């Protein structure tokens, strides 16, 4: 109990004193997760729109794979990526293993199915009369799709936030492909694991507080977005 209390006091001191090591770890964590989320969104959102608005062969299979991918175990992603990026692996020549680049790829793989699946569900949930309205007003197929995607914006925002929550709290994959190298690939989750192993609870607890705060912020943002999405929007039929 005393250890926890002391750890908490030291952690608050570290945070209040803007400890450079702590700040460095936080900055790298946000950078890796932010870039991974950007990449996952850039790839996932167009695919989500395509899956929601077009019928094509193997569409069902692709949706099934994406839904399965939402529960992808991070250690499995870490293992596969490790094998691919290791010196003897097919992409070993890129020398990405134990770099922030490898961590971004790992988190992108984890975020991609979440962004895509949840955005697809949001787009599919848009009332079909919206598309019809755009069509009757002279929209081209592309403009029609844009109108529908725009109506799903709150759901898409929630998908992106949910994916950020998942990747920022993830430890298995980034530890395996990043290596937890100080001042280079050490992020909040891997640092907590390491500091706990070393018995250095101050930094661990401080990072834990930051991570919990981040998680809280993500939840608050998600609720705010969902609340906006539930506000009177879209189609109103009768009083």
């Amino acid at each position, binding site marked *: 109990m005393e250890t926890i209390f002391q750890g908490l006091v030291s952690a608050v001191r570290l945070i209040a004193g803007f400890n450079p090591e702590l700040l460095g770890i936080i900055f790298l964590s946000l950078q890796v997760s932010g870039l991974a989320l950007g990449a996952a969104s850039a790839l996932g959102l167009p695919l989500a729109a395509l899956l929601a608005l077009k019928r094509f062969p193997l569409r069902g299979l692709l949706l099934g794979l994406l839904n399965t991918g939402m529960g992808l175990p991070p250690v499995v992603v870490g293992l596969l990526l490790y094998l691919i990026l290791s010196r003897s692996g097919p992409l070993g020549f890129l020398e990405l293993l134990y770099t922030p680049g490898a961590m971004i790829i790992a988190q992108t793989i984890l975020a991609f199915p979440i962004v895509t699946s949840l955005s697809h569900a949001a787009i599919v949930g848009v009332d079909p009369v919206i598309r019809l309205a*755009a069509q009757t007003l002279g929209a081209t197929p592309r403009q029609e799709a844009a109108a529908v995607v725009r109506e799903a914006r709150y759901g898409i925002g929630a998908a992106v936030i949910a994916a950020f929550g998942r990747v920022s709290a993830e430890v298995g994959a980034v530890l395996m492909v990043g290596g937890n190298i100080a001042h280079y690939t050490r992020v909040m989750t891997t640092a907590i694991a390491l500091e706990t192993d070393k018995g250095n609870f101050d930094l661990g607890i401080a990072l834990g507080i930051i991570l919990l705060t981040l998680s809280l912020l993500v939840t608050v943002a998600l609720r705010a977005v969902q609340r906006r999405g539930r506000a009177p929007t879209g189609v109103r039929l009768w009083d």
Partner: protein
Amino acid sequence: MTVQLHKIAKAYQGNRILADCSYTFAAGGAYILMGDNGSGKSTLFRLAALLEPPDQGEVRYLQGDLTLPPDITLKRRLTMVFPRVGVFSRSVSENVAYGLKIRGLPRDRVREQVARALEEVALSHKTHQPAATLSSGETMRLGLARALAVEPEVLFLDEPTTHIDRANTRLIEDCLLQTLRERALTLILITHDPAQAHRLGGRRLLLQEGRIVEVD
């Protein structure tokens, strides 16, 4: 622009809705289409408005002797308002501006046409209000404003007043009568209300057994 239905037929899952249906809606005319529920009025509208193709026959848009190709240029010269107005989750004015913006009109002209269309349906006072907060009657008026803003040459209205009160119905009818007086518009309207057909004064048509017949 004249709309010509030439022997069109449509069936859904083997259920025949329209058969050998032909009619010519002359440019600038007003037509009131009536018929029982399930008689195929809305199907006829979707085919005539080029939203889906007929199984047989042809929907032709004629400009003088010329048959116009059914491309996006032609589709932008006509519009349709459904009984369920799909309002975008934006403000009233942004809803009306949508059709103009996708045509790439300059901002000033968009603003001008939006203001005029909202005035025509007496919704100017709700310009900046979220569209989803409108009542059902106001929503239908918004649907009409959105359609009129793009200055269509052919306007299809599918039961625009079925689910709304008398005051809103009157506003819509007044707006349509004024539009017919001021613009070269072909209006084709579905209604179940013979009195409305009389008030609007168009040619009355009846859809029965998959074909259009003139009532008077």
